């Protein structure tokens, strides 16, 4: 059983991005880049399934600039067996990524996609659902537990009201939430090993996919800033201030 894990290269979650003064976007020059945290959780889950013997091969996929190879090497250091880079300098939006992943699925024949619920740069939360739709596969988003049993996968999902468990027929798409697992630290020997694992390079044209963006950005602005308030010394003072402000 094969699992494909799409991983996105994004600005590291510790970086507070700045909006460019001319409003054309955010400044990501010389900013630390990392694997999208939800995708790290996805790689970890796929690797655990392989370690349990449920899955035979874990393939990491990234679509984007040539530096995405670093992200793919990280995925292989966590334990992915091989990787595919779909290289392009074009801006990729979720629908285009979903189409590329669909084309890849048709080539590779995976039984399962495990991917992030949300990329922390565009905060779109769409690619997995779109991929499932394009493939006509079932989907389970926001997973906090994944159990494979024969040709079905049971997934517990984090939803607004609590938790929901679904049973999906394979092949299927699962997107990860924060509680699914805690990704392992990558060790130096595994980083060295990852350098020798196979990494295929493709382009969107190889899959005949049109990646033209559907959304154009008119401008990017800073959110309204909050002004710093006051520090109160005692609980009594806090209560008085809250009453004064009409907050209680």
């Amino acid at each position: 059983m094969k699992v494909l894990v799409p991983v996105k290269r994004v600005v590291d979650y510790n970086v507070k991005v700045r909006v460019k003064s001319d409003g054309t976007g955010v400044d990501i020059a010389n900013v630390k880049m990392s694997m999208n945290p939800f995708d790290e959780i996805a790689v970890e889950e796929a690797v655990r399934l392989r370690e349990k013997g449920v899955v035979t091969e874990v393939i990491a996929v990234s679509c984007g600039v040539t530096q995405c190879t670093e992200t793919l090497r990280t995925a292989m250091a966590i334990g992915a067996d091989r990787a595919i880079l779909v290289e392009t300098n074009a801006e990729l939006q979720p629908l285009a990524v979903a189409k590329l992943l669909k084309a890849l699925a048709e080539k590779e024949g995976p039984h399962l996609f495990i991917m992030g619920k949300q990329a922390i740069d565009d905060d779109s939360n769409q690619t997995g659902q779109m991929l499932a739709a394009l493939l006509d596969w079932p989907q389970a988003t926001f997973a906090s537990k994944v159990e494979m049993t024969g040709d079905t996968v049971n997934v517990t999902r984090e939803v607004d009201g609590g938790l929901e468990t679904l049973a999906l027929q394979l092949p299927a798409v699962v997107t990860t939430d924060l509680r699914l697992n805690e990704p392992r630290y990558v060790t130096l020997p595994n980083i060295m090993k990852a350098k020798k694992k196979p990494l295929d390079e493709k382009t969107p044209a190889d899959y005949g996919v049109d990646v033209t963006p559907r959304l154009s950005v008119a401008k990017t602005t800073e959110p309204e800033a909050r002004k710093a308030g006051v520090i109160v010394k005692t609980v009594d003072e806090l209560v008085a201030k809250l009453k004064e402000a009409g907050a209680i």
Partner: protein
Amino acid sequence: MAVLLLAEVTDGALSMDATAKAVSAAAKLGDVTVLCAGAKAADAAKEAATIAGVSKVLCAEDALYGHRLAEPTAALIVSLAGSYSHIVAPATTDAKNILPRVAALLDVMVLSDVTAVVDADTFERPIYAGNAIQTVKSSDAKKVITFRTSTFDAAATGGSASVENIGAADNPGLSAWVEDKTATSDRPELTSAGIVVSGGRGVGSKDDFAIIEALADKLGAAVGASRAAVDSGYAPNDWQVGQTGKVVAPNLYVAVGISGAIQHLAGMKDSKVIVAINKDEEAPIFQVADFGLVADLFSAVPELTGKL
């Protein structure tokens, strides 16, 4: 222009707050038709018909929609999509699950978590945990949108739209519901509460979260939590406030033992009044707090509860 709005219906009950907020956002785009889908949906449809600005309600009552599985619900929406220029919903986990599936079937993008409508093609939405706001213009034939409810006021009631019953669409039969684990509570719902009291890692244990809950109950507030508190098992997942949890904007938000990471701020920084209680005066939460109290939460919070 005509808008199809997927109402938030859970176990037959309409979430009035989320739905009415989405209606007020959608009304800027054209005539709003609300779709209520569920195993039971008639009561929800009747209630949705009272939201001002709704011109029609479609009621799809069928066992197929009982748990609002993404595959059949998306198929239903796609079967109706022909007549509408915009397909929208409040940005709940339910809609975030379903609408991208609809969009891909229609070969269009989703505009997620929209915070402002500029015109029929142009919308504002936050990116990078709300550290930047993008104005995006869609070139797609149909627009699929989820609205961030915390930034829109709920439409009033008093309307009397007609309700039309519609049949079920195809059953793709790809997935099945197994079980729900939901806790019922007498507290207000987190995303619509006027006051929210949230606890973080500083609370230290599940048992001690009772301190947070006692303050919340004294204030008639909903209870929230940071990711760290949820990860540590102090609070359930549906209490998480933040970039990847719930987004709230109550009149009063009280953050207790929460450091104020950007991912947490993303979910609460539009609150009207923010109070922070933290023993570390350097904690970033104080940079967004209107009133900060540098204190040990184990003494300050019970004292506050007692004095209210």
